[in-house]
C-alpha cells in the first residue's frame, strides 16, 4: 500500500525528465555512433523506464515483494534474450578438431584415399588395383 504519496512536484519533475529523455533519444539517433547507437538508445530507454516504474507506479514506496516481482520479470526476459542470442552469435564459430577423439584408422584395410576437394582439376582417380 503506497501510504506515502509522492508530492506533486516530483510528478512534474519526472515528467520533465521523460520529455528530456525523449528529445535525447531522438537526437542521439541522428548522430552516427556506429555500433554504439543501440546501447545509447537502450540506456536512455532504461532511464525513462526506471523513472516511470519507481515514481509513477509507486514501486519506490511499495513493499519488498513488488520489487521482487518487477525484477523477476526483467531477469526472465533477459534469460530468454541472452540464451537465444547466444545461439545466433556462436553459430559461425567452427569447433576446433578435438585432440583426443580421432576417428580410429581401421587397420588392415586400405588407407582412405587422400581426397582433395574439386579444387585441383585432376578428378580423384580410384587407385588402380
Amino acid at each position, binding site marked *: 500500500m503506497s501510504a506515502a504519496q509522492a508530492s506533486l512536484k516530483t510528478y512534474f519533475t519526472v515528467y520533465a525528465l521523460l520529455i528530456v529523455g525523449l528529445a535525447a533519444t531522438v537526437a542521439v539517433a541522428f548522430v552516427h555512433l556506429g555500433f554504439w547507437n543501440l546501447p545509447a538508445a537502450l540506456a536512455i530507454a532504461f532511464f525513462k523506464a526506471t523513472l516511470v516504474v519507481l515514481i509513477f507506479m509507486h514501486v519506490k514506496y511499495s513493499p519488498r515483494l513488488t520489487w521482487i516481482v518487477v525484477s523477476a520479470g526483467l531477469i526472465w526476459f533477459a534469460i530468454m534474450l541472452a540464451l537465444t542470442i547466444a545461439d545466433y552469435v556462436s553459430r559461425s564459430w567452427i569447433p576446433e578438431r578435438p585432440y*583426443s*577423439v580421432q576417428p580410429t584408422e*581401421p587397420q588392415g584395410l586400405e588407407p*582412405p*584415399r587422400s581426397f582433395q576437394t574439386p579444387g*585441383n582439376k585432376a578428378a580423384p582417380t580410384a587407385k588402380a588395383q
Partner: protein
Amino acid sequence: MNTEFELFPEAASTNAPLVDHLYLFMLAFSCVMTILVAFLVFYFAIKYRRGNNRVDRTQTPPSNRAELIWIALSVPFLMFIFVWGARVCFALVRPPQNAMPITVVAKQWMWKFQHPEGRREIDTLHIPINQPVHLQMISQDVIHSFFVPVFRVKQDVLPGRYTNEWFQATKPGEYRLYCAEYCGTNHSRMHGRIIVQTPEDFADWLAGGTGSEEPPEVAGQKLFEQLQCATCHRPGASGAQQRGPSLEGVYQQPVALNNGRTITADDAYLRESILRPTAKVVAGFQPIMPTFEGQVSEEGVLNLIAYIKSLGKQGEPNPPPSKGGVRGGIPDASKSKEPSGATRSSQVPSSDLSPEAKGGTP
C-alpha cells in the same frame, strides 16, 4: 534394411562406438540407481508396515547431511557425463580434412544426392568404405532430418541454410536412412538406403554412370558464363573497370567488407552473396549486383559454388570445405548489367535454373 528383430543396433561407422560406449555407461548407471531406489522402497515399505511393531520408530533429529552428501556426489558426476557427451558430439560435428563432399537437397519426401564426380542419385547413396564422407545439406521446403541409425548420426536439413554432417563407414552393406524431423504427410515414407561398397565396387559404380552428368564445377562454369557473371568478375582483371571482386582463390580466404568487418568466405557466405548480394558488400565495391533469388535453383547455387571453389589459384589447391553457418551478413561482388532473358543459351541443364526462371518471368 533391418528386417529381423535386434536388441542392440548395428554399429557401422567410426563414431558409432563412441556413442555406444557412452550409452552403455549411462545404461549401467541407470540400472544401478533404479535397483537401489526400488530396493530401498520395498525394504522400508515391508519393514516399517503398520502391522509390524517389533521395529523401533524413534525419530532421530532431522539433519541435512544426507542431502548435502548427495549433492556433493552428483555435481561432479553430472559434469563428467556432460564433458564426455560434449566430446563425443565434437567428434560427430567436425569433418576430417580429406572428406568426400556430397551435396544433399531434401525435398518433401525425397532425398537428392550429388557426388563430386557429378553422379546424381535419388533416395539411395553409394559411398566407399573407410572414406570419410561430408554431407552438405539444404532443404527446398520444410525442415527434414538426415538420420542414419547405424552411423549414429542425425542432422536437421534446413530451408535457406547449409547444415553439415559427416561419417566414415566401416562395414560394407546396405543401411537404412530415415527422415527424423516431422515433415508432412509422407514423413514416414521419406526413407532411403545408404549402400557402402568396397573401393573397387564404388569405382565401377561411379564409372557405370550414364556419363551425361558432368561434375558440378563444369555445370557451374556453364551457368557462370550463361548468367554473364564474368562481365564484373572478370578473371585476372584489375584496375578501374573491375566492378566485382575477382573470385580466384576467394574460397575460405578472409574477405574485408565495406562496413569494416572481415569474414571468411565459406559456402554460406557465397550462397547468400548470390541470393542477397548487398547483404555483405566487399570493401571498395558498390552494392550494385542484382539478386539472383528465384532465377537459380538450389542445385544451380551449389554448382556455382563448386565452380568458385574450383577457381583456386594456380598450383595451390583450396583448403577443404568447412562447416558453414549463418554468417552475420557479408555483401559480395557487384555486377553491372542485368542478364537479359533472351541470351540464355539452351545447353545449361534444366535443373540448374529454378522452375520460375524456366517457366517465364521470375
